[in-house]
């Protein structure tokens, strides 16, 4: 990164690099994150995509990206990044390409690939020390196919495959923790509704080499059943209720970049989303709401 260090909102890029007019849904929190990330990573990148909603960003003959794009499969985007990175390194070392033509490999994947099918190739890429940025936009379900439950679905959420009164009975997998256990050079959670926090983390990630995770919570109007105008509000509430902690892993330590004080009741976040409506009507499910709140409380008790 050549730009000066980002310290405040006024330092954020004013020119926007990602093209408009994509086929993402109105109010897509994932696209909002990709916009903000792309302004900072720029066009000297190749986005290596795993099957997800954003596979449709590059639909022949259009692309919103200024740099490269390679769609791979659901399971093997990190291996695609490995092939590109290795080839670029070989070309540089053998003098068959100039440094000006070098690019940063960025994996772009949804939670379906990141938390499930692609974990094996992700784990191996980190273990090999692959120099890449992994951007997961997490809308907490298989969104592109109509929001079926994935390994990222939160406890209690109704999805199109968990339609019972208790919603999804499993627990959201800790992707950040899985990455941290691999000791990568960097891992962070972000949400587009907190653009300054996001920008600082992307800037830090881009100053490093090696495996780097950016896990973006992606409020999803269609999958979570809320009004598209509320995407930013829901993103903020995810942070302020503490249900989605903003943190980073660097030099072997985990630091929370935003500690919500006071922490709002998690209900404030849940209530805006149709996927949690069954917790409030026809009767209030006090037990499950208490459980969810207790889970959040426990997390913050442990880390602060």
């Amino acid at each position, binding site marked *: 990164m050549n730009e000066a260090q980002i310290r405040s909102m006024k330092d954020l890029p004013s020119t926007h690099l990602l093209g408009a007019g994509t086929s993402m849904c109105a109010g897509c929190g994932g696209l909002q994150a990709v916009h903000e990330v792309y302004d900072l990573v720029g*066009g*000297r990148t*190749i986005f*290596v995509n795993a099957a997800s909603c954003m*596979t*449709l960003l*590059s*639909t*022949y003959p259009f*692309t919103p*990206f*200024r*740099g*490269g*794009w*390679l*769609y*791979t*499969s659901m*399971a*093997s*985007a*990190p*291996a*695609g*990044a*490995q*092939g*590109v990175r*290795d*080839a*670029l*390194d*070989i*070309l540089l070392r*053998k003098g*068959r*390409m100039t440094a*000006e*033509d*070098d*690019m940063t490999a960025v994996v772009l994947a949804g939670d379906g690939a990141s938390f499930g099918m692609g974990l*094996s*190739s992700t*784990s*191996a890429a980190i273990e*090999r020390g692959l120099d890449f940025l992994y951007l997961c936009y997490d809308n907490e379900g298989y969104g592109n196919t109509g929001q079926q439950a994935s390994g990222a679905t939160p406890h209690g959420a109704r999805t199109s495959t968990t339609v019972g009164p208790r919603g999804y009975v499993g627990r959201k997998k800790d992707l950040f923790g899985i990455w941290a256990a691999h000791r990568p050079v960097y891992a962070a959670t972000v949400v587009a509704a907190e653009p300054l926090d996001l920008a600082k983390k992307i800037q830090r990630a881009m100053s490093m080499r090696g495996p780097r995770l950016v896990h973006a919570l992606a409020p999803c109007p269609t999958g979570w059943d809320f009004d598209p105008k509320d995407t930013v509000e829901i993103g903020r509430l995810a942070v302020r209720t503490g249900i989605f902690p903003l943190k980073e892993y660097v030099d072997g330590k985990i630091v929370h970049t935003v500690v919500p004080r006071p922490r709002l009741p998690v209900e404030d976040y849940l209530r805006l989303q149709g996927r949690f409506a069954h917790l409030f009507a026809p009767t209030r499910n006090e037990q499950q709401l208490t459980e969810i709140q207790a889970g959040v409380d426990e997390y913050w008790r442990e880390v602060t």
Partner: protein
Amino acid sequence: MSRLLLTGNGAAAWGARLAAVDYVPAFPITPQTEIIETLAAWCEAGTLEARLVTLESEHSMITAAAAAAATGVRVFTATSSQGLLYAMEMIYTVTGWRAPFVLTNVSRALAAPVTLEPDHTDVLAARDSGFLQLHCSTCQEVVDSVLLAYRVAEHADVRLPAIVNEDGFYLSFTREPVDLPDANAVRQFLPPFETQGIEFRASRPVSQAVAVLGGTPYSYFRYEVHLAANRALAVYEEAANAFARAFGRYWPAVETYRADDAEIVFFMIGAFATKAKDAVDRLRESGWKIGLVRPRLLRPYPEAALREALLGKRAAIVIDQNLSMGQGGVLASELAAALYGRAGQPLLIRFIAGLGGREIAPEEFYEMAKVARGAADTGVAPTPRLLYTANELRELRKLQAIAHAERAGSAR
């Protein structure tokens, strides 16, 4: 040129070394592993200036291979059997990237039951993917075919990945004398990979493998792969001639052995074709007009050359070392389609044989020849069948009796 005793796997590794590959994404699987171990040792020693990376699966390995090829380096990789099947999503995907590289498949029969020994059902699962397929019957052919495969795969008219197939065990672990082509002459035959601008560079961004909306663009791009594969026929012929001029060995798309005046021919691919040649020689000594027709190139399918070799024969004994469940042998059905409705088409005598490494004995070749002659005399082809002796069945029944006794014993 130097002469070495090499296994099929050693020959495949030498092919990659002589092709001066840049990148080897790898994953171990029997009987292929010796190839990547050999290459790893050369990379370490610096005798091959390439980067070898072990991926965590063949699915990832093929993804990395094609991604690197799409970035503009020469890539070699290898697998077998379950590995090829595990990679199958990407085998079918990467042909659409039009990124050429070479994959050596060391054929091994598919589970279940689990075995390490060869047949060709694995590689034929990749038949419709867009990968070119070259099938070898000797170790010499393996090293030469790797070089031929790069030349054809990288050609501007083709730009498709290629599989060079060798049989597990019978070729992979069998040492044969191999004439290694001279490295300088190889550089003439196979210049460095020319990307034609299809590569990822910051100054010239491209989008690869994007989505399309609807059948119109899909049909166009997918059919382009088919047309490119078809163009590989002429490109192959040119490459085989150039190879013959440079190295004195001519590897036609379809090998014919003592077939010109033959009335009956064996028709098969792979290492066991050398057994068929031996049987042809013996039968010729007894006065038979018999030969062998062996397609080396299976994709693209050398239809015209096969017609030329086979029309006018009385019978072709098709030996399929593969099994399309519920249909039969793949070679036979493809050959029947190529010959259908043509004057002088031979009677096809269909055998499934050599599954899971099952030997084909000389006497069995003679017996198949007799069956073919009898059928040709009556004009009626016998029902396709599995080459399997009464003695074998008796031995298997013994194993079954033991299995039943063991199970009954453990249940008590």
